[in-house]
């Protein structure tokens, strides 16, 4: 009971972002085809069940409840398998797995597979019935994967070492599956599991809950949920000196119209602090994609989301990315391709109603134009067609602003990007736009600081911008 409550509070109060992170890299479909596709591989049932649980992470308290229940089940099963006086040892697998799952790429299917293996092992076999393992081992392997070795070991302990023939049998089953049923999978993965870890041919690291990693995950979680005030507040207390962190903080500042005032109060990584260049992994581009979205650079948001989704190395879809991809397509009027993505979402539990709503909206162009977000982003989009160039992202933001002078975020990002690049001459040239279109009652404090810095040629002791420039100069002079 205490363990369950502890686990629930841990996930729900301290690490809801970890749940969100897991949920956003899968898209569980309630279809027979999806189930058949999953159980077509060894460990597929555990994988399917794990994904089924993870989809409920969408509702944080429910996700935390399910996850803590799984840990409780693990402890209860372990206690049942241990001699009564050793019951306290049942905490060990719980603690080990809890620590192991600090590695964000460990999938819930591993925990599910272990729970299932222990469940089967709890059905004690009397010696005359041990032959049933001839059937249980291959079926178990197909359902839960190589975690079946745990079952084999437990049986050997229960029945005696004479039962170790089942280990040979399991090994033979795995080799037969590799040779005849899994022509497109390497032996290494067939032996160690196809679906316990998100990155193929890699294995969990006992890194636990690394503070910086989880802070970045939390920032992205807050961006996803548009909790801008919390981002700014957290940024004031703890900084992770990466471009990813800067992207999140700057986006939050821009949404609160604080970017011009406070940007250099926080760590800035350089010219990638607003938008990161394309990076081939499943996380780095997310805050930039969100920034593109809010700016009205819809094609770039679509591209970053698409590439993020395709960077999920276990080939899963992402509910979050698919949703945003569909939205970008709707804004661009590409309804046929949008409906392809909406069709996927309609087969899920938590994105279904939204997808249906969007599907209905696509039938009425005026409704999209009137939509508070989509209509606005349609107005913000580029009117000219040209090639995106990350090296000239400041100019692209300037053009975006000139397209629609109501796009104040584009104005803020345009000026901020020039400051990050140290392009003072152009900053001074375009500063008048902030006065004319920025909607500021007075010149923002950040810009005042920059002007002061320019006038004093950087010799301002308490200037945040001067410190930034100094740091960048030092960095560029390093070999």
């Amino acid at each position, binding site marked *: 009971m205490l363990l369950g409550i502890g686990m629930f509070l841990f996930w729900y109060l301290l690490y809801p972002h970890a749940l969100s992170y897991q949920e956003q890299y899968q898209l569980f479909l309630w279809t027979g085809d999806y189930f058949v596709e999953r159980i077509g591989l060894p460990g597929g049932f555990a994988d399917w069940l794990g994904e089924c649980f993870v989809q409920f992470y969408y509702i944080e308290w429910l996700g935390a409840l399910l996850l803590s229940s799984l840990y409780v089940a693990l402890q209860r099963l372990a206690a049942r398998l241990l001699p009564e006086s050793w019951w306290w040892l049942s905490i060990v697998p719980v603690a080990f797995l809890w620590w192991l799952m600090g590695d964000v790429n460990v999938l819930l299917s591993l925990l599910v597979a272990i729970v299932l293996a222990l469940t089967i092992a709890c059905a004690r076999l009397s010696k005359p019935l041990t032959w049933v393992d001839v059937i249980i081992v291959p079926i178990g392997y197909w359902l839960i994967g190589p975690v079946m070795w745990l079952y084999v070991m437990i049986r050997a302990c229960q029945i005696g070492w004479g039962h170790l023939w089942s280990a040979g049998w399991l090994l033979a089953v795995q080799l037969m599956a590799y040779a005849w049923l899994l022509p497109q999978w390497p032996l290494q993965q067939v032996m160690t599991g196809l679906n316990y870890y998100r990155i193929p041919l890699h294995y969990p690291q006992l890194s636990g809950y690394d503070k910086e990693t989880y802070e970045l995950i939390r920032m992205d979680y807050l961006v996803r949920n548009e909790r801008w005030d919390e981002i700014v507040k957290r940024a004031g207390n703890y900084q992770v000196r990466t471009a990813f962190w800067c992207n999140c903080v700057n986006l939050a500042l821009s949404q609160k119209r604080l970017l011009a005032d406070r940007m250099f109060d926080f760590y800035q990584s350089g010219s990638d602090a607003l938008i990161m260049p394309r990076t081939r992994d499943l996380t780095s581009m997310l805050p930039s994609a969100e920034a593109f979205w809010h700016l009205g650079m819809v094609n*770039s948001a679509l591209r970053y989301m698409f590439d993020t989704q*395709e960077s999920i190395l276990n080939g899963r879809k992402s509910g979050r990315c698919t949703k945003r991809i569909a939205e970008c397509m709707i804004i661009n009027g590409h309804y046929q391709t949008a409906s392809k993505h909406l069709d996927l979402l309609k087969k899920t539990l938590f994105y279904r109603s939204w997808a249906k709503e969007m599907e209905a909206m696509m039938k009425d162009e005026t409704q999209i134009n009137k939509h508070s977000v989509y209509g606005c982003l349609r107005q913000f989009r580029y009117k000219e067609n040209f090639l995106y160039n990350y090296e000239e992202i400041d100019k692209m933001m300037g053009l975006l602003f000139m397209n629609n002078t109501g796009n104040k975020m584009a104005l803020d990002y345009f000026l901020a990007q020039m400051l990050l690049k140290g392009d003072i001459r152009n900053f001074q040239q375009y500063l008048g736009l902030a006065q004319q279109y920025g909607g500021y009652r007075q010149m923002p404090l950040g810009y005042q600081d920059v002007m002061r810095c320019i006038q004093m040629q950087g010799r301002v002791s308490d200037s945040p911008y001067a410190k930034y420039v100094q740091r960048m100069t030092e960095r560029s002079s390093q070999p």
Partner: protein
Amino acid sequence: MRRYLYIVINVWLLLACSSEPDNVVKVDQLPEIYPDYIGVTIPADIAPLNFNYVDEEIDRMDVIVRGSNGGEMHVNARWADFDIADWQALIRQNQGGKITFTVCVKKGGRWTQYKDFEIYVSKNCMNEWGLTYRRIKPGYEVGGDIGIYQRDLSTFDEYAILTETVVPGRCFNCHTANRTNPNRITLQMRGEGGGTMILQDGKQTWIETKTDSTKAAGSYSYWHPQGDYVAMAVNSVHQSFFTGRGQRIEVYHKFSNVEVLDTRTNELILSPLLQTEGLEIFPAFSHDGKWLYYSTSKPCRVPAEYEKVKCSICRISFDAEKGTFGEMVDTLLNGPSADKSYVLVRPSYDGRWLMYCVSSRGNFPVSQNDADLWLMDLRTGKSRELKEVNTPQTESFHNWSDNSHWFVFASKREDGMYTKLYLASIDENGRASKPFLLPQRNPRKYYREMMDAYNCPDFTKTKVELDAHKTYRQVFDNKREKVKIR
């Protein structure tokens, strides 16, 4: 008692599910079916052309198929799902003739009978086992779950040749067979552990085609018909992205040359005429192997000058005995003078036709929205647009069947993004038949749920036998024989 109840329920379900048309209202319009198979020409060795009704709210469909040379089939289901054996028998019986479809649709309890439509069965079979193709997410710079697959064209069965699970994170493509013969295949893999795989008569070897004298590894390959040489483009491919709502991506090459690999000695054969400052790309040997066709464009400062990339189609003679090129280049079609780009030459294997892509610019047609297929009669040198198969969207990645009566191509006609495969035939006068979408068991469900785009389709005479386990070991062993310059 329970047993009888069970039988009664089953009989009732059977009757309820197979309602035959009654009180049919006839209308003078063609049925709206997906895919649009009305009036297409098919080979007598193709899988059933199953179709759905466009209106998804229908209760049932009743389809009667009659052959002009006899034979009949009847389907009564949610969609026209024909039995493979019955279909094969019917179309073989009607080879050179036509089959007529009578479609009745039940909606809201009422049956409607539409005007009959016909499908023509060509007198020419494909004589191919199936197709090979790559499936890739139609994304941007990350390919995702890439796979090379093969599809039995007489059934709906698809088999993986090589998927991302074998070589995670690697980009692979340019799988090329020699004149649809899977005993000769090349395949390129980029990035870490990359290289060129050559599969010859079951022997699978990996080589490194980048040398000190060539700028990159070879790609965009094409086999010499004798099976000893492979022509390759040596290039560096890049992408840029548009801000507008039309074309999404501009693919361009910063350099590109053409070379030929002698697979017997692993030597590269170079010619200064194919190693110019211009961009030579997409080589293809003529049917007799005496000519090497390719496209070429002047060097441009890409991506800034992406609109200036205009390719011409050229050819240079090749002596397979000596392994040497000629000393003169013929220009067959001049891109800059026509303000067009002519790319991706594919000569038919009977030596009669040259099929290629025409677009307003660029040397990677699948990314160009206006790319269309054109056909040159090599006997007269005259070209014409294949209007019968083109649409305002992209048509590209075409390849011929071994008998040159059929061709396969990829088109984005349905939604402008997800390329799908179409097949069509060519008659003696170079007229193409209306193309038909690659058949699937339940086409609407299949294509709606398919999140991949098809590219690089080609016919295959027999099933490709590639040992993916061995490929994994070879890729990760990273042992590559380096080629030499001859």
